[in-house]
């Protein structure tokens, strides 16, 4: 691809972000550990009965994974802001929304995809029936990008702040309620033997909407916070 074009800029950004993540690959383990610990705490609180745990398994895993990826959202623009490259992105002649979409994609691939990979392990810990597991994985694959996209808008709004952790949670969680309802709802329906495609289709529709709108909104939000 010719240097200087938008495509080349996106590729360069993708390669840079992947390299940076690889250099600090230890950090990527933190959300995984967090999710495993949260899920492991539930049997201690509720008792080890298989029926009880299987009943709440899908919802618990969903909440644990959403919280874990929320924790890592804070890091989306942090290092770029500190070394000044975020301002260069804003000043670059390429569409900011596209560049941000690349960053969000890399963030999802490096922090949230590993969470989905360990989801079967978490499902075993809580005795989730094996028939529900594929539905859980599909629901997670649709719901977690949504969190990354909507979360990116909120991160862009809070980017200049020193301690944004609690505030970010307050901003993101009300917006993400439907993802939890549809995602965990599909798993619960599958577990009860009911049809589960409708909530998954809703999740997919919302994801498509967010894929188009969220990078544009994140770009606008970032321009507000960096003025």
């Amino acid at each position, binding site marked *: 691809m010719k240097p200087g074009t938008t495509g080349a800029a996106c590729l360069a950004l993708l390669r840079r972000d992947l390299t940076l993540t690889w250099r600090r690959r230890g950090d990527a383990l933190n959300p995984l550990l967090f999710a495993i610990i949260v899920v492991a705490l539930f049997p201690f609180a509720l008792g080890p009965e298989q029926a009880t745990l299987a009943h709440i398994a899908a919802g618990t895993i969903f909440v644990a994974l959403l919280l874990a990826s929320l924790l890592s959202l804070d890091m989306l623009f942090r290092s770029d802001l500190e070394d000044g490259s975020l301002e260069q992105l804003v000043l670059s002649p390429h569409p900011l929304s596209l560049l941000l979409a690349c960053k969000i994609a890399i963030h999802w691939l490096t922090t949230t995809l590993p969470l989905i990979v360990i989801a079967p392990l978490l499902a075993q810990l809580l005795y989730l029936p094996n028939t529900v597991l594929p539905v859980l994985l599909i629901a997670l694959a649709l719901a977690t990008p949504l969190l990354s996209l909507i979360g990116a808008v*909120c991160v862009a*709004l*809070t980017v200049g702040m020193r301690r944004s952790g609690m505030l970010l949670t*307050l*901003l993101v969680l009300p*917006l993400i309620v439907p993802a939890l*309802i549809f995602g965990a709802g599909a798993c619960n329906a599958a577990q009860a033997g009911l049809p589960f495609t409708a909530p998954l289709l809703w999740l997919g529709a919302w994801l498509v909407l967010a894929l188009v709108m969220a990078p544009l909104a994140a770009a606008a939000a970032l321009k*507000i*916070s960096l003025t």
Partner: protein
Amino acid sequence: MNPLLLWFHKLGSPPYFYRLAGRFLPWLYVVALVTGAIGFYGGLVVAPADYQQGDSFRIIYVHVPCAWMSLFVYAFMAANGFIALVWRIKLSEVLAMASAPIGAAFTFITLVTGSVWGKPTWGTWWTWDARLTSELVLLFLYFGVIGLHSAIEDTRQAARAAAFLALVGVVNLPIVHYSVNWWNTLHQAQTVSLMGQSKMDARMLWPLLTLAFATHVYFFASLLARSRAALLELESGKEWVRALAKSTPTQEAAHG
């Protein structure tokens, strides 16, 4: 220039708005107080007790107007946020941010009165009913806007960021509302239907509408008072504020 357009431009100027709002403010308070008193008299004394719920239904005279206001104020805040972001009108930023705490208060009152009414009627303080849940999410959205606004130091940047969040919330609110509806109907039907189905008696209805009017007027009064204070703070370095502070300190203190 077109006189209406001219008036609109003048309204956007902080000193003009400050004076105009100061002139309207006492009248708005009086109207809100009088219509509120009439509405409460009609609702608590004149209206007959409900044949099923007895006197406990009377809490709707607080609950329902506040619930309507919680949505109306959010729409007002988002509309002003949109104007502030697109046309960069300073006054709209101030109005949007001044309405956020009022809206949060209305939402909070809605939740509390709903819970007080739910205890004798449904037998529980809280139920995960679709409407209650969306109202709770709305309260968190308000808290997010207020939290973001107070977390950023630069006032104008804070207002723009919070206004943007309010707009994101507007796009998301219908999705939240319908998803919560869907979630609720999947699990269980509504235990007791609210007043929607049963036609309301006219003797019960007019105090409700009067109170809805009174809460609207009260909202605008409170909004004007809050935005006057916010304008003074925002423009504290400007000439007109300094002139104001020098000329009539006692009178302004009484108004503020």
